[in-house]
């Protein structure tokens, strides 16, 4: 019971972190058609900026400033790079962000080295939040959950309940009409891309000290969130949510379970479970859990 509850909570907090990433990826993908290969690289930048800024100005200001810097960087990249390759199609956009992931990795390794950086928790987030059945649940993980829920709530409110959200939606479904009405559609797209990157950066700031901050994180998280998006169904935010939770729980439970299957322990199999799930979904439900498009 205790094991199930704690693993459930751990799985949920990891799943919510995954959703912070996959939601930004899905938003950018469904609105612009751009598959941002460098999305996890922006997460990594958020984590490293958060680490550096928390050394300079403290963790709480860093929580605000680091995502802003990452967002501005993303907007700049959209303005300089993506806008130029848009005429070559979506594959070219994907390729550009693929090249970008190399550049971000080199930048991070050059600035902070190849080893794990000691990105510590602030004193307010250290220690357990509560204790159930004798096992403690850390504050940091609850904080990840809180930030994720707040972030998703505000994004949802922004997109559906404000004038800005209205313009964004109009610019994406009817770009010519929105342009004729005097809205700057390219600027909206830049904003969407920057916003998505800022969300990844925010996830990095809170995820970086709860989990680990190292250069390899971009590659390992990057492939997981791709799996999340495929399993959930391309372009579906609800699907991304479901898939994030599913994969978060799956991985947490698999690591914790102590049984053996075909002579290999389940915890050893944990890293490949998300990919296995993806293959199964593709065979039996190619649209993904909540997807609407066939291809």
């Amino acid at each position, binding site marked *: 019971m205790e094991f199930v509850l704690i693993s459930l909570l751990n799985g949920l907090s990891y799943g919510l972190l995954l959703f912070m990433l996959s939601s930004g990826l899905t938003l950018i*993908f469904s609105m612009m*058609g751009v*598959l941002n290969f460098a999305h996890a690289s922006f997460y990594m930048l958020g984590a490293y900026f958060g680490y550096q800024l928390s050394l300079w100005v403290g963790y709480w200001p860093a929580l605000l400033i680091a995502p802003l810097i990452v967002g501005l960087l993303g907007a700049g990249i959209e303005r300089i*790079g993506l806008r*130029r*390759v848009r005429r*070559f199609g*979506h*594959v*070219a956009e*994907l*390729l*550009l962000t*693929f*090249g*970008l992931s*190399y*550049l971000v*990795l*080199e930048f991070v390794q*050059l*600035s902070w080295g190849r080893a794990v950086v000691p990105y510590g928790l602030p004193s307010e987030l250290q220690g357990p939040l509560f204790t159930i059945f004798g096992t403690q649940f850390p504050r940091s993980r609850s904080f990840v959950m809180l930030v994720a829920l707040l972030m998703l709530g505000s994004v949802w409110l922004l997109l559906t309940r404000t004038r800005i959200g209205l313009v964004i939606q109009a610019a994406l479904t009817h770009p010519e009409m929105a342009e004729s009405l005097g809205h700057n559609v390219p600027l909206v797209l830049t904003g969407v891309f920057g916003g998505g990157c800022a969300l990844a950066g925010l996830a990095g700031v809170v995820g970086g000290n709860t989990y680990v901050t190292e250069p390899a994180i971009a*590659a390992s998280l990057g*492939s997981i969130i*791709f*799996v999340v*998006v*495929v399993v959930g169904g*391309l372009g579906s935010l609800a699907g991304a949510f479901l898939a994030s939770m599913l994969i978060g729980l799956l991985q947490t439970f698999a690591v914790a379970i102590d049984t053996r299957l075909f002579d*290999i322990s389940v915890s*050893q*199999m944990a*890293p*490949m479970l*998300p*990919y*296995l799930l*993806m*293959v199964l979904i*593709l*065979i039996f439900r*190619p649209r993904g859990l909540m997807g609407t498009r066939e*291809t």
Partner: protein
Amino acid sequence: MKRWIFFAALLIAAPFVFRSGLALSLLSQIGYIAIICLSYNLLFGQGGMLSFGHAVYVGTGAFAAAHVVNLASAAGWWLPLPLVPLVGGVAGGLVAFVLGFVTTRKAGTAFAMITLGIGELVGAMSNMLPGLFGGEGGISINRVYGGGWLGFNFGPQEQVYGLIAVYCFVCTALLYAFTGTPLGRLLNAVRDNPERVEFIGYSAQRVRWHAFTIAGFFAGIGGALATINFEIVTSGEAFSALRSGGYLLFTFLGGASLFAGPLIGAVLLVLATMLMSEWTQAWLLYLGLGFCLLVMYAPGGVAGLWMSNWPILRAGRLLRGYASLLLSGAALAIGVIGLVEIVYRWRLQLDYAPSVLLVVGLIALALMGGAAWTLAWRHFHPRWLEAQAALAGGAR
């Protein structure tokens, strides 16, 4: 025909021109990587399938070759080494046939995501099965087994190069021939407009699947030749996402829109990973930067740049424009590269202190080069478009 004779002559002459041991080893690597990049471009350039998991099929071929060589030498089977790459090819093709059923269900960006996931899956699985994939130490082979074949025992590197060169030529010819087959033509059609292909009664997914299998076959041949060349294969390297990314990167750099582009890509790949990484620690930065610039400004890669500029140069037009672009570009490049090298040394070497004068000089050089290049480009670009149009008109 003339091109093929030239290609064969190049393969034969190369080891006589570059005689050092290093050169021979580089040439051998270029030979089999050329096959891999060509097989990659069958997917990417000809089928519009952007794969992030090509190393899976190369690695399968590599491991199949390692196992079959070890089995043959242990059990004394009659299996001459020149046939081993075919075993690798069949293994790569089989695995591509099975996995391709899943991956080719989607096209475009979804295909890219799925291949990345499959690549990670196979990578994670190979770590879990040390019996099959040799664990951290990998699997070693001894390519000199049995009694040799037609007087070759394939011990010396020259003989291995010969084997690789023959395979490189044959595979290139086969892959070129494939582009003319009905399936090859359909593959182009699926890339350009899958909906219309479906309307005339073909299954776009099946065309992608079959092409995927063929690409897996040639990738497996390349992987098996790699095993023969190095006599060792490790799962950590063979299935790494970095490998898959490298094939994509260099195929694109070489030029995906032309058949011969990946051959240039293979040369670039070997030169970059073997030589550039020796010269500079910043080589991955240059690689990423060069790749991004090509995606933005020259999506045809090196081969595309050559094809669009060589006719103009041959006609002797715009020579001054080219010269001014080249000079200002060189100044810009020297400035930027110098600064990057200084930054890397400053970060990675403890006792390195760059002179202020040098840094200021390099910044000035980069800025002036950049400004001059922009000016030259503004002057050059409209005239270049004119010249292109004129030449195209003349050809018609």
